[in-house]
């Protein structure tokens, strides 16, 4: 058990190495994506780090065809909210999956997408 906060820098350093981290409230069991100081469910402070397996299913997705500056050359690309097996959700870029194969409920698996110094959450074939 730890009452240390998992900071964004730590979360993304771990993600870059292929590992997803969640935090579980030691008071009420709430599972959350860090960082959080207090538990939004019970208001207490006491977290333990949980390694997530990376497997999940798509709960919603979209194919972006008009992109912000910095992503313009990448269209079309898909972004999805994925419900992970442990019961917590993450948003990420879909990779290595045909856009027309996407549907709600499709099993996917986490993979880090690294570009220069930046790491983003990605999801590819299960």
């Amino acid at each position: 058990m730890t009452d240390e906060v998992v900071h964004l820098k730590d979360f993304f350093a771990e993600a870059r190495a292929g590992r997803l981290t969640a935090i579980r409230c030691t008071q009420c069991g709430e599972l959350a994506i860090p960082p959080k100081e207090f538990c939004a469910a019970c208001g207490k402070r006491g977290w333990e780090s949980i390694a997530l397996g990376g497997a999940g299913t798509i709960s919603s997705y979209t194919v972006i065809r008009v992109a912000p500056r910095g992503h313009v050359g990448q269209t079309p690309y898909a972004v999805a909210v994925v419900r992970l097996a442990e019961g917590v959700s993450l948003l990420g870029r879909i990779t290595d999956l045909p856009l027309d194969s996407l549907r709600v409920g499709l099993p996917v698996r986490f993979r880090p997408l690294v570009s220069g110094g930046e790491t983003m959450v990605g999801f590819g074939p299960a």
Partner: protein
Amino acid sequence: MRRVAVIGVGVTKFGKHDRTSAELFAEAAREAVVDAGIEPQAIQALYYGNVTGGESERQLHMGPLAASLIGLPTIPTTRFENACATSHAAFRHAVMEVGAGVSDVVLVGGAERILHVPTEHATEYFAYCSDASFEQPTGLTFPGVFALIARAHMEKYGTTETQMAHVAVKNHRHGLHNPKAQFRKEITLETVLQSAYVADPLKLFDCCPFTDGGAAVLVASEEVARKHPRAVWVLGSAAASDSMFMHDKRDLSRVTATERAAAAAYRQAARGPQDVNVVELHDCFTIAEIVATEGLGLFEPGMGGPAAEKGWTSLGGKIPVNVSGGLKAKGHPIGATGAAQIAEIVTQLRGEAGPRQVEGARTGLTHTLGGNTATVLVSLFGRD
């Protein structure tokens, strides 16, 4: 809290302008002062809303700038930023300042200027209203956020792209009668359904436009308002938030901040959804209107789509929604939108809305949503 009223409103033409956002606000403020029939020196504070000025106009510290252009360079000012709910958030604080007895007359509103920058820049600046760590790096856009909500709503309730298209057609029809609207042109279901996808399942005509414009509202104490026969009372004004992160939202088919803000505003006003005669709500995307009509309690969850299809939200329908044309046709200068919605409801409750008037409207509601559904404001207004 003292009773608080709106005694004057002003809105610029929405569309493309070659003036700065502070100039646009100053024009709206002048219109509000003339509308109220007060001397500008009666204004004791300015609550000013703007979102992208730092990026699009290289301008911060906009409160005193706007006050200087109005000709009130010495009044206290504060700039607000709550994404697309910015000036509605400012309004709630102005109501609290007057309600608390700190000031008797406060000028509140906002402005935005964005059409002078390329679309991909504007899309990027708006995306700054979502989280920069998890969400912006994925290339998620605002149409993308509401596309995720739309897909979840379609999965859960069977909501269709045709039902969403009905919202766009209705709001464009309403906008015909609003001389300040950016688009005054009817569109057909086919136009919407055949338009290109921006973020599946949302198409170009499911989206509101980028817009330049300003809007201003004068908030006053009961003592001042008694001298203004066209005053409209603020019955309630409430704010609520939801987690900034899409990954924290338990049910993407709902905007729970809308439900919380509405419950608080109804409680303050001692009224319920059945008492509301006219609604201006945040239709940044067609699905946003459908989900908002459910969150405000106008329809049961899942009935927002069928209600749009059956015309229940049209002028002359059960509960007219966005008779101004809404964000879809009137336009969406994000820093001005909340104040512009309030200006429309005040105009409606005064009975001064001309061909878009909801006959006999006595209670009105405004709903403004900020960013990735993390900020929502709801206010209620009445003739008495």
